[in-house]
């Protein structure tokens, strides 16, 4: 049981990282980015191509993360601008349709150009024992990176000027504008950060298992579930939800079967909406 829970925590840290990028963009711009998983896959393929071209793994990973961040920024500066001008249901629908379209385009291009593309980063070394449970070095590295990213994000949003500006826009955009904050600038930076996080997820996930060209949809759905359970707009909530859902995923896969995990995770999201409509830590609480 200890090993199952530890596996769940490792998985959940990745889930948390995945959820943060989705939740921030929704909290700021009211856009559920359905292209999020495809941006991660795009980053994975960029890293894989760079490594195949002889670039060292670490540098290739940085290039992949930057490529994903640039994609996020480009999305914000182009297709998302008309979305931000809408309100209510129109805004949500237009955001969903446009990002779904982007997802189709990225998936189509990647499948066309590199149908067997996949990223697998092998981290050499003997398994490391944690609480008496041997964990693959790749899993440990992925967890350490996710934890470091979580800590950096929490410090960024809790203790920096820009982090406060982001939280203020999430909580009350009009109030933020009236204290001199530009929501457009904040959204652009956060869309880029979200893309970068998708790239980082691609790198960490590929340390534990190959990330294939058709993984985008699953990544998007997982990110959506994590952000709903954590509370849309909440960074801490996304990480907490990620870890809890990772444990739920791992336990249900072990005791029932892998086939059931997607249903269990979706059930958790539905239950959260019914019981805690604002998610575990509410929206926009940092």
């Amino acid at each position, binding site marked *: 049981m200890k090993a199952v829970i530890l596996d769940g925590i490792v998985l959940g840290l990745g889930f948390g990282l995945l959820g943060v990028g989705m939740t921030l963009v929704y909290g700021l711009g009211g856009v559920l980015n359905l292209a999020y998983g495809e941006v991660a896959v795009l980053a994975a393929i960029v890293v894989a191509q760079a490594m195949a071209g002889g670039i060292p793994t670490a540098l290739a990973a940085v290039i992949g993360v930057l490529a994903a961040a640039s994609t996020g920024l480009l999305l914000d500066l182009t297709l998302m601008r008309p979305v931000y001008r809408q309100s209510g249901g129109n805004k949500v629908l237009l955001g969903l349709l446009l990002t779904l379209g982007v997802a189709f385009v990225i998936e189509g291009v990647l499948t066309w150009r590199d149908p067997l593309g996949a990223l697998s980063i092998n981290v050499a070394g003997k398994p490391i024992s944690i609480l008496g449970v041997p964990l693959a070095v790749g899993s440990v590295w992925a967890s350490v990176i996710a934890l470091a990213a979580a800590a950096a994000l929490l410090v960024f949003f809790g203790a920096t000027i820009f982090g406060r500006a982001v939280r203020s826009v999430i909580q009350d955009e009009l109030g933020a504008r*009236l204290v001199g904050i530009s929501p457009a600038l904040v959204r652009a930076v956060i869309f880029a950060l979200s893309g970068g996080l998708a790239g980082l997820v691609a790198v960490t996930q590929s340390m534990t298992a190959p990330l294939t060209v058709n993984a985008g949809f699953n990544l998007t759905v997982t990110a959506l579930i994590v952000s709903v359970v954590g509370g849309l707009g909440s960074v801490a909530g996304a990480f907490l939800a990620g870890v809890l859902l990772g444990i739920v995923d791992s336990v249900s896969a072990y005791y029932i079967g892998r086939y059931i995990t997607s249903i269990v995770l979706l059930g958790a999201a539905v239950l959260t909406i019914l019981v805690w409509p604002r998610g575990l830590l509410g929206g926009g609480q940092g």
Partner: protein
Amino acid sequence: MWAQQARRALLRGPSAHRQVAPDQSAAGGIVPLLQAEAITKHFGNVFAVEDVTFRVGDGEIVAVVGPNGAGKSTLLKMIAGLERPTSGQVRLAGRLVHARVPHQVRRQGISIVMQTPLTFTSMTVLDNATLGAMFGPGHGVLTERRARQRAADSLAFVGLAQRADDPVASLNLHQQRFLELAKALAGGPRLLLLDEVMAGLNETEIAASVQIVRSVRDELGVTILWVEHVMSAVIELAERVIVLNFGKVLAEGTPKAVMRHPEVIDAYLGKAHIA
């Protein structure tokens, strides 16, 4: 003692222009701080504000009054960048402001306090005021330490120093409006727009608000344009009153003169008011 130190600190900061007496020459044609020239706002076929021209001199307290739907709040929103005029111009110290968006207007030196407080509820009182201090006119983006110091000074100025570490949700409406004022002052505005900030307050709270607004002008040198329905406060505080009705200027002058104006009595005050 604390409040006096806060006043001195705010005066040393970038918001301080000078301690002023009201610029009585504003109506007489010398370059004013704020100029609204023939500004008009349509919403479809509805004229919310039509061809309104007025000036506010540096250091003046000018009130805008009128019946509901007269266009008072729309007027303030156009100056604050929240609404774009259909036509006409707004200038602050000679520079056009009406084509800008709210955060640019704020950085140019105009802050607005709305009737409904726009506080950031998950943050403390000090964090809210710190956000107000970070992006002010003239001083760009402050460092964390300077912004917090400036925020603390603003809170002390409005009498909320003791509540700095409390969550915003623990403040009542009156205190939340003072927090909004602290956020506005922390940015160092040249012109402060107040939109019915005394609505819903009791007499004691109105008296406290009048005192604070007066000290904002007298001690910090901030010019004030103020939309208000509480006429007792307007009479006590305003040096000039602009009366709007159906989006147009109906009368302009000292509070006493305006209150005797027959059209103002008919349209807004009612005969009972002067009886």
